[in-house]
């Protein structure tokens, strides 16, 4: 079990994400590398024009799950210098939906931890998004079944 106390900063909520501030939460005189990753609402999906996005979440569980992911990443990273925020609610094109900041003595660990966090978010975080199209229609974005759940209940099934 990962040690949750090591995580510096981890938040799921409707507040606008300030990525510069997030990056300033990590870093130390021991670190030679830092990475900031941001996910942004883009204006197209599967060839359709997108005007905006709504992020829904199971917010308490999302906060717990994001904290677990961050703790696992900190274990891989070997330091607690990471920060991650996921926004929910209505977002316009160009707005930041997720931001991850990581620092470490050497670059490989920062790349690894950043990538781990975003990939696990995509697999596990109970968040859903609805795309609004320029033509006035909307639809839920096709997601990924979380791993290790929904398994058959017995040998016969």
């Amino acid at each position, binding site marked *: 079990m990962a040690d949750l106390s090591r995580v510096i900063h981890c938040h799921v909520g409707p507040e606008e994400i300030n990525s510069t501030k997030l990056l300033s939460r990590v870093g130390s005189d021991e670190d030679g590398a830092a990475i900031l990753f941001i996910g942004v609402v883009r204006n197209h999906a599967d060839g359709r024009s997108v005007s905006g996005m709504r992020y829904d979440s*199971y917010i308490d569980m999302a906060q717990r799950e994001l904290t677990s992911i961050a703790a696992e990443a900190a274990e891989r990273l070997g330091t607690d210098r990471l920060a991650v925020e996921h926004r929910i609610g209505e977002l316009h094109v160009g707005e930041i939906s997720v931001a991850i900041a990581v620092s470490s003595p050497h670059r490989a660990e920062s790349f690894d931890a950043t990538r781990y966090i975003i990939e696990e978010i995509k697999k596990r975080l109970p968040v859903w998004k609805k795309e609004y199209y320029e033509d006035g229609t909307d639809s839920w974005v096709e997601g990924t079944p979380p791993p290790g759940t929904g398994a058959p209940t017995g040998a016969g099934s």
Partner: protein
Amino acid sequence: MSISVNTVFFALYRDLVGESTLAVDLPVGATVADLVEELRGRGAPFDSLPTDPAVAVNQTYAMLDERLGTGDEVAFIPPVAGG
């Protein structure tokens, strides 16, 4: 003897069943799979839920054979799409 659990539906599943939450009574010893069967057995709109949905019990992902108790919060988790 029976137990009562609180089911919660999100996103696509909320749209399908037309509800956010629903209290469900189940026999003692019932599992997540029993809950799914009970709900789907009610017919429309509940039979549009998958037979093997991802679920979380008290905010932790759970298997279909996990046993439920009174007061448990059982969330039906559609495929996730964060990031």
